[in-house]
């Protein structure tokens, strides 16, 4: 009556998964630089996905909340793609290999899961910080653009005044949603099967003497 023990992967609707970031409305066009940055994001995302699939220990998903920043040509925004990952849902932890592999194995899985959650939290915090920095940079650019436009309207220095740049209209950026990490329960690994105890008799094994 031993049974093969495995954790059921439960992706129930109630799982507290962060909402997908809202894509920019279709009737607002992003500047080319923003599209280029988004392409880079997508490429990095694909690369990260492949890396995740190769991982046996964890499954990573990108936090959809990453796709919000616009990049201007002159802005030296971070082009490093920060991977965001969600903690592994309950049940998709590394399966126990055999009932006899024991309490040590199950404790290890739980510890690995906890470490993973910690790393993910840290990574997502980094994402939030980067996005906040992006927002500040964009705001600064908007201010300097406004200053340039005002200078051009006043006549400026003369020499370069004829080449006043066209005003850049920045789209309003969606706010970065706060990332709420779901609570992760340590998988409840059933106690391993113990060998049969010594017995005093056996029933059913009728010994028929010739």
């Amino acid at each position, binding site marked *: *009556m*031993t049974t093969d023990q495995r954790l059921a992967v439960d992706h129930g609707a109630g799982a507290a998964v962060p909402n997908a970031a809202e894509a920019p409305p279709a009737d607002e066009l992003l500047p080319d630089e923003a599209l280029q940055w988004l392409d880079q994001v997508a490429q990095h995302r694909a690369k990260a996905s492949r890396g995740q699939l190769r991982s046996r220990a964890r499954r990573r998903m990108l936090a959809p909340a990453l796709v919000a920043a616009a990049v201007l040509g002159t802005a030296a925004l971070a082009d490093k793609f920060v991977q965001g990952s969600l903690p592994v849902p309950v049940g998709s932890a590394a399966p126990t290999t055999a009932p006899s592999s024991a309490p040590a194995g199950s404790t290890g899985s739980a510890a690995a899961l906890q470490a993973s959650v910690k790393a993910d939290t840290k990574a997502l915090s980094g994402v939030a910080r980067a996005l906040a920095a992006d927002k500040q940079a964009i705001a600064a650019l908007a201010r300097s653009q406004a200053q340039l436009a005002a200078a051009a309207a006043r006549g400026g220095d003369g020499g370069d005044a004829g080449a006043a740049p066209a005003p850049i209209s920045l789209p309003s950026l969606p706010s970065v949603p706060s990332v709420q990490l779901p609570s992760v329960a340590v998988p409840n690994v059933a*106690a391993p*099967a*113990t*060998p*049969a*105890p*010594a*017995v*005093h*008799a*056996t*029933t*059913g*094994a*009728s*010994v*028929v*003497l*010739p």
Partner: protein
Amino acid sequence: MATRVTVKVPLHSAVPAGPAAPSAADLAAEAAQDAFDIFAEVDRTCTRFDPGSALMRSNSHPDEWHRVPDALYQAIAQARHAHELTGGLFDPRVLRHLVDLGYDRTLAFGSGRVCTPARPDAGPQAASAAKGAWQPGLRAATSEVRIGPQPVDLGGIGKGLAVRWAARALSQRLSSYLVEAGGDMYCSGDAPGGGPWLVAVESPSGTAEPLCVLAVRDRAVTTSSVRLRRWRAGGRLVHHLIDPRTGRPGGEGLVSVTVVGEDPALCEVWSKALFLHGAAGVRAEAGRQGLAALWVLADGGAAMTPQMKEHLHWPLP
């Protein structure tokens, strides 16, 4: 009935009456000998494998009255009670079908390869001839029986009764013991070292690891199984648990049934009757009778009633 009989006695169970009394070991040996004598008597009178036994002499003329030893008289009386209790599923008249399948003598089941020539399938005809309740005649004052009209086999209930009577004899001298015959047993009091007696239920596949282990105290444990007593009769795989309704081996979908209860003979009867209900009906009947029962299915699965779960010691539920 060629069956190994075992008696286990914790020494704490045999307390000498005084300094001059036999030692605990001697007391245990004497009590065990009483049990062995009972088994020998039941075997001698109730076996169908000895043409000279009291049962076979009665079977030779089943419509006549025969004066028989007390053990046989009690066995036939208990068999009639069991027949009524199980609604006819326990029916000693299946002897004819066993003989038709070649089981008319002791067969070497332990070898695993037993083949017998089978007579033409008389199953349905013989079954119809045995229709109607079995009502043997019994005269208690003179210990006479009239088995008829068909001869009978008392192998299963005979063993259960032997365990019952042996347990009674052991209880006269011992508070704790285990008496076992061919996988049917009674466990009294505490096992050596204290605690209940632990009884393994053999795996139907015959592996060393048991299916489960039961903890029992003052209870009988009996199993009806087709793991051992099966053979090829005329090329057809058969076993010894005959369904009286069809005259053929019954218990479709089951490999074994184990029953725990107060009386060894009744446990024996119910283990057989439940087996004949087959996989489709065993749970309902066991529930109806309130039995502590466990059954193993032909597909390898197993199940038990809540009453049996109370005895489950391993694996942990």
